[in-house]
């Protein structure tokens, strides 16, 4: 069943390497992109994306607080990564 039909909020969490932290995977992708001829594209950085379903009854503020804690304590390693949380209401 779709998220909307189950009356769930959706959280999106983006985890990215902090600026300055080496991203050899991004570099390897960049190299392939150059081989494809996209000379106008540079600085590719690889990250992670998570989708999380939340009970709508939680309310946006509580949902944001919970997901932010999850992002900080589990989904990212604050030594090397930053995170960004988005909440979509049902």
């Amino acid at each position, binding site marked *: 069943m779709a998220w909307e039909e189950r009356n769930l909020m959706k959280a999106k969490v983006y985890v990215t390497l902090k600026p300055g*932290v*080496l*991203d*050899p*995977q991004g570099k*390897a992708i960049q190299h392939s992109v150059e081989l494809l001829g996209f000379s106008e594209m540079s600085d590719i950085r690889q990250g*992670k994306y998570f989708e999380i379903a939340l009970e709508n009854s939680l309310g946006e503020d509580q949902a944001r607080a919970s997901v932010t804690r999850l992002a900080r304590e*589990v*989904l990212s*390693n604050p*030594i*090397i990564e930053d995170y960004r949380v988005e909440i979509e209401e049902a």
Partner: protein
Amino acid sequence: MKFGVIVFPGSNCDHDAYHVISKHVGQPVDFIWHRDTDLASYDAVIIPGGFSYGDYLRAGALARFSPVMNEVKKFAASGRFVLGICNGFQILCEAGLLPGALIRNRDLHFICEHIFVRVETSDTPFTNELKQGAVLRIPIAHAEGNYVCDDATAAELRREDRIVLHYCDRAGHATDAANPNGSRDNIAGICNRERNVLGLMPHPERACEDLLGSSDGRGMFRSLAATLAAVA
């Protein structure tokens, strides 16, 4: 003295560590399943190499939440000895028992080869039988062994003599060419401020028998055994 080897789903160097403790250190050793929470009878625990939880999310990130890890934190806080090898080092960093993080190797590859490390300090329970400056030939086997930390942490590690091993060449020079994975300052192993928790990417437990290409790893286990004999 009694040793424990913690086993997570995906650990794969647990038997190597067990073998070295029972055969070369000659002391009792148990496997400790990651759901167990009783470490009372142990003097030292080894967090072995492998791919706990398939390295999902980040290497070591999910093992940190296994029930045994809360007990390992208390165990370390009580002054007993924790040795994290390879994935064990990654887990100790994720758990906050050691500073910094281990990210993808500079050249992306999984590297499995014998390398050289230089012992930087004899002032740890894991290296007190080794000479400062000794060069050991020990294998590495990892894809995420590239040690990173911020400038303040790096300075603190140096100031407090907590960098235990540097990657080096055969002659003991810590050059960039001898750095297999891009680790900051060629760091291969560090200890905590209290010096009872050591994490390292090389596998000393795979270098305890000449038949396997090197027995240079024995000194670390000999040191730990001597430490435990002295405190017992």
